[in-house]
């Protein structure tokens, strides 16, 4: 019994203190992984904020964007043009989703919309693979996947690029939400659909805009994840990775998605490296969820979520 306690509560911390450089490396790895999760979670948050739709298809949107991009690059389309075309495709997708899925389901229960996005998930998965094929593709965006060493700590160049991209993206989004006219309209819609409608904010346009932005975020996420692990079907499963980030940070919060991603990323790596061997490893599938669950028990709306106010 004492051995177990020792193994769980003492030994891992001893290991950490023993080799600080390794600990820092683990932490940095966790931070980068977390940022990658955040990129996906960001798409969820944007859509949930503006339309209250829990968009399960975000993971497949990432896959779809990456597939389109790779498909174009394989046909020797210049990178810039390929990015532009992919953006156009994602915006067109946003229009189609608004017209064919969201508008007919307006005013329905949240769970119905959630289910509709799972249907969308199936559809896009089939559609993307039909257009571009199902085999694994390599996405080369010119950033070498190599590491350099700063003060004895290994840093991966690709992950660093992803981190910088994520930071830029979040800053841009924050500016867009706070400073622009459309951004304010988006926040108004997020606050209250009906009130926003009654002061003349066009709900349909807003939804198209927000799904388009989520599509662009999906392109960025697809770019990063695709460069890291290749473009293949399993890319759509990162949605499942982003979910604990989402509940940890709170569904409505952009900063929550980032901070949640970092916490999950670091927690996951620490758990995997220091506690994983105790239980036979392969814990990354559920560890993030349990971690998020532990946070939720203290704050049921996530770290940055809107305070849940309930009354009879």
């Amino acid at each position, binding site marked *: 019994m004492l051995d177990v306690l020792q193994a769980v509560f003492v030994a891992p911390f001893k290991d950490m203190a023993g080799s600080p450089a390794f600990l820092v490396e683990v932490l940095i790895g966790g931070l980068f992984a977390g940022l990658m999760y955040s990129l996906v979670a960001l798409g969820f948050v944007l859509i949930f904020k503006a339309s209250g739709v829990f968009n399960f298809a975000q993971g497949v949107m990432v896959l779809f964007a990456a597939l389109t991009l790779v498909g174009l690059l394989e046909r020797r389309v210049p990178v810039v043009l390929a990015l532009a075309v992919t953006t156009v495709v994602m915006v067109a997708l946003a229009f189609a989703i608004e017209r064919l899925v969201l508008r007919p389901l307006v005013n329905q*229960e949240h769970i119905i919309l959630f289910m509709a996005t799972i249907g969308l998930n199936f559809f896009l998965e*089939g559609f993307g693979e039909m257009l571009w094929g199902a085999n694994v593709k390599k996405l080369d965006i010119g950033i070498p996947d190599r590491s350099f060493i700063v003060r004895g700590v290994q840093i991966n160049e690709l992950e660093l690029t992803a981190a910088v991209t994520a930071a830029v993206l979040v800053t841009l989004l924050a500016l867009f939400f706070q400073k622009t006219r459309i951004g304010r309209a988006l926040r108004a819609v997020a606050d209250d659909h009906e009130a926003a409608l009654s002061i003349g904010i066009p709900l349909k346009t807003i939804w198209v805009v927000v799904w388009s932005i989520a599509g662009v975020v999906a392109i960025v996420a697809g770019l990063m994840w695709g460069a890291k692990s290749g473009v293949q079907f399993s890319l759509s499963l990162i949605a499942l990775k982003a979910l604990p980030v989402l509940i940890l940070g709170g569904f409505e919060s952009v900063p929550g998605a980032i901070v949640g991603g970092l916490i999950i990323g670091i927690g996951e790596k620490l758990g995997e490296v220091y506690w994983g061997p105790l*239980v036979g490893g392969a814990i990354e599938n*559920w560890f993030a969820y349990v971690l998020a669950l532990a946070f939720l028990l203290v704050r049921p709306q996530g770290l940055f979520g809107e305070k849940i*106010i309930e009354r009879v």
Partner: protein
Amino acid sequence: MPQTKDTPLGRAGGVRAGSNGPVPSTRRRAWRRRMEPSRPGAARACGVVRATPPAPRPPGPVGHRQVIYREAGQFKETYASDQAIFPIVQDRVVVLAAAVAAFVVPPLVASEYWLQAVLIPFLIYALAAIGLNLLTGYAGQLSLGTGGFMAVGAYAAFKLATAFPQLNVIVVFLLSGVVAAAVGLLFGIPSLRIKGFYLAVATLASQFFLLWLFNKVAWFTNYASSGTITAPDRTLFGALITGPNSTPSARYLTALGLVAVFALVAKNLVRGRVGRSWMAIRDRDIAAEIIGVRPLRTKLLAFAISSFYCGVAGAELVFLYLGSAETLAFDISISFLVLFMVIIGGLGSIVGSFLGAAFIVLVPIVLSNAPHAVGLRLPVALQKQIELMVFGGLIIFFLIVEPRGLARLWQITKEKLRLWPFPH
């Protein structure tokens, strides 16, 4: 009655709102609520029977207000006849006839393919869907952990059946349901604090954790090197009903018997005290708490009973359908599939669970055979992709056509038929 919603007593439920001062959006929502003509949720919680569904309502927090309402239209003279399981005469006749037909016809007529590939999975998934419907449709707790609870049932049944070979297989099923219920109880505890989509994502923790556990701990598979569990041969009333040598008919009848009994139990649960307290929690949990429904007991009971059903269904899945399985058979896609059945079938409807299960089991079979039937020869990969697209599209289509599910369509059909040929 609507005016009483924001009395000091009413606000007492939302302590946080009072202490922090009302947020503008919250005030608007409260105003909107006051302006509504009636509160169907509250009415149902008090046991008032409504004849007509209410008008569409603005979206609120994740809740399940669009549910199936009681049918009206036949005059009754006694309480007993009003409280019958099927208050409508035609319903009684049709359900009874269907049940008898289900026991007699398929074993005589259906081919092995139909029994094995369509009817047996249909019955098993229907049982799981009833289980999830009790939790999500009646008690309002969205769960994505169904696959995990089914796995608990399956592995418990395997362990029990191999550890106690003399044990009757029905007892094994029931006990594995009890084990699943205990696990469900454990994973239901967060629901007391976490609600809505947060809870849904949190239940995924159980899904991933349980499957990982069954993969990692070799004890669960009796240290089989392949990591699979295999259904041993077991008999019931002298007939072999599990294992590779049993006939599909025997397995079909076992599954049918179990699902018939459990559907009846569920139907009675939801129209009794337990079901009413579930619905009260679903419709507005704070109000329910104030009128004396205990959230702790009610929610945990819903998780336990739902997991019991899912556990039995999981045990059946291995023993009566697959024969042998690994954890892959219970992965997250199963959870989504069962949730689809519940939503497409109709939240808060037992018959809807059957309809939804039939739909989800049949559609892939129809889709994979359709190109063949019209003489098209497609590459396998392309056909699979088209299947996915059509499946996804169909789900969206059905949600748009009738968000309240097939059960609602069935109800409308019945109402029309009762008035036929002289509608109002």
